């Protein structure tokens, strides 16, 4: 096995180990619930008989290792349990909701990167000038503003004061349904993108500034390159390397950011599912989503490594 593929296989094996650990943590969480899951589901009015029956039915009266093995076995066969509130297998729910959250996350990330990279470049070029200070102030403000507040302002501005966009996300069953109603996507996507733009443009600005003091930039100038082409040809790629790390590590955070945005715009994604499940103590759903976020974290860091290798030949050739 050579170089990069070998590395990938190794990283995927590592990811499996991490996911195994995640499953243990999720399992332990399940058993830390006060009064156990039965009490949580049947509520304070559940009789001892009901609880005992429920525990026996779910296998909760067996030893913990046995239970864990059962849990793992079900996990491997794709059985994540059943939602108590929605009376539907968790897997089906996730299958339905996850793509929508992915759509929201990907759209807002792409939008954010497309805006943040040139913005950071611009700030770096105009370092210390009025426009840099203005943009710095603006991005800090955005960075410090909670998503729910930002979302509220967006709704007030664009759905009420100037009613040009719907305040609610499209409610379709499939991705195609969602995309069929693009105007409904604008507010949630833009709201979510704002926070990411704020962070990424700060990173981009400092990465570009770091690179501008590098000697290879002076070499490029000595060749007669214009500053514009030095930015495009030389600095950009080098400055994107630290951004790649950020992107991968930020992925799980984006998932949780989606939670607020989704519940705000009633966007039918995983976040909203989680939100509703949390309010109704629908533990199998909560745990299922937690597992997915765990997977996202692992995938995110794997993605970072791959992006790294694509951007930086020094890392590629170590393989």
């Amino acid at each position, binding site marked *: 096995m050579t170089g990069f593929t070998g590395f990938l296989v190794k990283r995927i094996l590592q990811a499996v180990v991490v996911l195994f650990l995640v499953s243990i943590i999720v399992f332990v969480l399940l058993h830390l619930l006060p009064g156990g899951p039965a009490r949580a589901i049947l509520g304070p009015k559940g009789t001892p008989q009901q609880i005992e029956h429920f525990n026996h039915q779910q296998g909760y009266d067996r030893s913990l290792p046995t239970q864990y093995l059962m849990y793992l076995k079900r996990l491997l066969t794709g059985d994540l349990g059943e939602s108590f509130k929605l009376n539907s297998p968790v897997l089906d729910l996730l299958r339905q909701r996850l793509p929508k959250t992915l759509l929201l996350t990907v759209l807002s990330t792409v939008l954010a990167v497309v805006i943040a990279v040139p913005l950071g470049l611009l700030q770096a070029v105009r370092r210390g000038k009025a426009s840099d200070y203005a943009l710095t102030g603006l991005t800090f403000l955005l960075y410090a503003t909670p998503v729910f507040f930002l979302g509220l302002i967006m709704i007030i501005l664009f759905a009420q004061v100037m009613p040009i966009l719907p305040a609610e996300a499209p409610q379709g069953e499939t991705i195609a349904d969602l995309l069929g109603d693009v105007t409904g996507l604008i507010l949630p996507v833009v709201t979510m993108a704002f926070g990411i733009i704020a962070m990424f443009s700060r990173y981009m600005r400092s990465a570009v500034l770091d690179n501008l003091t590098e000697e290879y930039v002076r070499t490029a100038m*000595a060749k007669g*390159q214009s500053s514009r082409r030095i930015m495009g*040809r030389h600095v950009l790629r*080098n400055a994107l390397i630290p951004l790649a790390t950020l992107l991968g590590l930020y992925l799980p955070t984006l998932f949780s950011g989606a939670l607020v945005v989704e519940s705000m715009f009633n966007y039918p994604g995983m976040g909203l599912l989680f939100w509703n499940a949390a309010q109704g103590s629908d533990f199998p759903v909560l745990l299922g989503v937690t597992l997915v976020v765990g997977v996202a974290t692992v995938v995110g860091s794997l993605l970072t*490594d791959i992006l790294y290798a694509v951007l*930086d030949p020094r890392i590629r050739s170590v393989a």
Partner: protein
Amino acid sequence: MTADNTTDKTGPHGEGPLLTIEDLRVDIASRERTVHALDGVSLSLAPGEALGIVGESGSGKTMTALSVLGLLPPGGEITGGRVLFDGRDLAAAPAPVLQDVRGDTIGMVFQDPLTSLNPTMTIGAQVAEPLLLHRPGIGRKEAWSRAEEMLRLVGMPQPAERMKVYPHQLSGGMRQRVAIAMALVCEPKLLIADEPTTALDVTTQHQILELVDDLRSRLGMALILVTHDLGVIAHRVDRVAVMYAGKVAEQASVRDLFERPRHRYTEALFSALPERAAAGAELHTIPGLPPGLVTRPTGCRFAPRCAFATDECRAGEPPLTDAGEPSAEHRFACFHPVPDEAASDEDVVRPAPALPAAAPGDVLLELDALVKEFPLKGGAFARSRGTVSAVGGVSLTIRRGETFGMVGESGCGKTTLGRIVAGLEEPTAGAVRFEGADPSRMSRAERRAHRRRVQLMFQDSTAAMDPRMRVGEILREPLVIQGVGDRTEQEERVAGLLDAVGLPRGAVHRYPHEFSGGQRQRLGLARALTLSPDLVVADEPVSALDVSVQAQILNLMRELQRERGLTYLFISHDLAVVRHLADTVGVMYLGRLVEAGPAEQVYARPLHPYTRGLLDTVNLPVVAAEGTAKPGPSPLKGETPSAARPPSGCRFRTRCPLAQDVCATTEPEVSTPNGGAHQVACHFPSASPRLASSV
């Protein structure tokens, strides 16, 4: 502003100079202050001519070079004067005009090849870039084939394959070849090289200078070579300008300058060179430091450090004149120049007087077949992939009170050896015996006590000190750790140390970054001496310093050695410095000690072909006699192989001119063909002495 009229012989496109710098003034502004980096510099350069600009750090030599192309660092600005190139004033030219000139008619090579190439672009793309920029007529394909041709011209092996690799896959010397290829691919009329070999090893340095020389005559271009190294300048240029504190102090043909320096600064600079001092003698030093240039000094800028300064020097600035020189080319700015006839013979290299056989003390340190291997790991991707053989079986003896100079190029293992001696690394095999005892077999307490007897001095003493600790704490810390004395005693001891290294006692309240380079090395030495060690391992202690400051530190080290009976393991790549200081010399190559012996013997009658090659490679700061050729081709070809796969048998055989089959199969035994303590590990040690050697 009074423009210097002598340079007015320029016609825009006439036969006159290619480049004329007139009364150039450059300010560099930072947040706190503005430095007047250049203050009225005038120079000129004929087509095809090679001009050297020498000076110590802060003299303005690099700023002069950078302002020609408008590449001043942030905050830098040309505030006056003109830079006439091909009839155009580049100092006043708008960006597009400068961009046309850069990389096309003027090429530039920078100091550090490790950082001056773009890490994420292929070599080919970087070399072809100027062509695509300046020759819009030619296509990408043509540009690539020309770039490849250029790589071949700069001596890059397998240029076609190298076009596709990234800078990190090449060695430092090869990267500098790439940088030269980039600068020359458009066949400029002028090449500006700013310290192009300072970051390279001696043998590589020689190869690169050779290459620049060769390409210059082949392409018929002019050259500005900026360097602090008088040895480099002596052999590679026609004319030299000596800069001091933002001004030209003296300019002359290279022969005139080296044989009859007139400015007192030039004279002082030459006499501070260890190459020019008799071995064992005290070096001439220039007291003090160059001025900071935040305010314009009145009078001659060298006056505060000059032994010949009078009130006249302190009151008025001496003009650059040719005062009675036979050649109008020789000009200097000094009121009390070196008398015309003097200088020459008196200061030039004398053969070292035979050293009074240093009373051989008892053996202090013994290394017995010392081996150090590091596992080779490849970052995130890897498991261990073999080992790097940093030290491959070194045995040597250091006697009390002597200076053992360890010489070698980067990667030869000399630093690792020093770290093992200082107890910072554990050897993989072999033994260290300090007064007969092996530290690795000592008990914890014994070892702790032993540590104070061996101390380290570093190349960059600031980096080796906690930036948030005051000097007083830094110097006291070893005493606190070892529990020596109470606070008052410790402070007294620190004060005594500061006296000894020539720093004011008030220094204890200051932080390391507040000191100049030379002062930091004094601090480094003081820190090493805090615990009154027997042995000081000094790893390149003067290689970051300017010549005049270097002489101060070397003298100080020698003086303290006499006073305190210190033993030094002095590690350096600089053969002249080692020769000056060392009683015994060891030469390392790729982890092996190839030769060792009394300094004067090793330098006069080197036995190992590597030692011989190193000595022949050194650029002496002496101009060759009239009629003799420039230094010959590099005696050492190629590059040091990787220590991860050292050659079998003799590790030097891949670069050795004398290599035979036996060298690949059998590791050479240590022998002493010259008798005495002069050892060599070679199958074919050389018998003849070196001729007219002076390093």
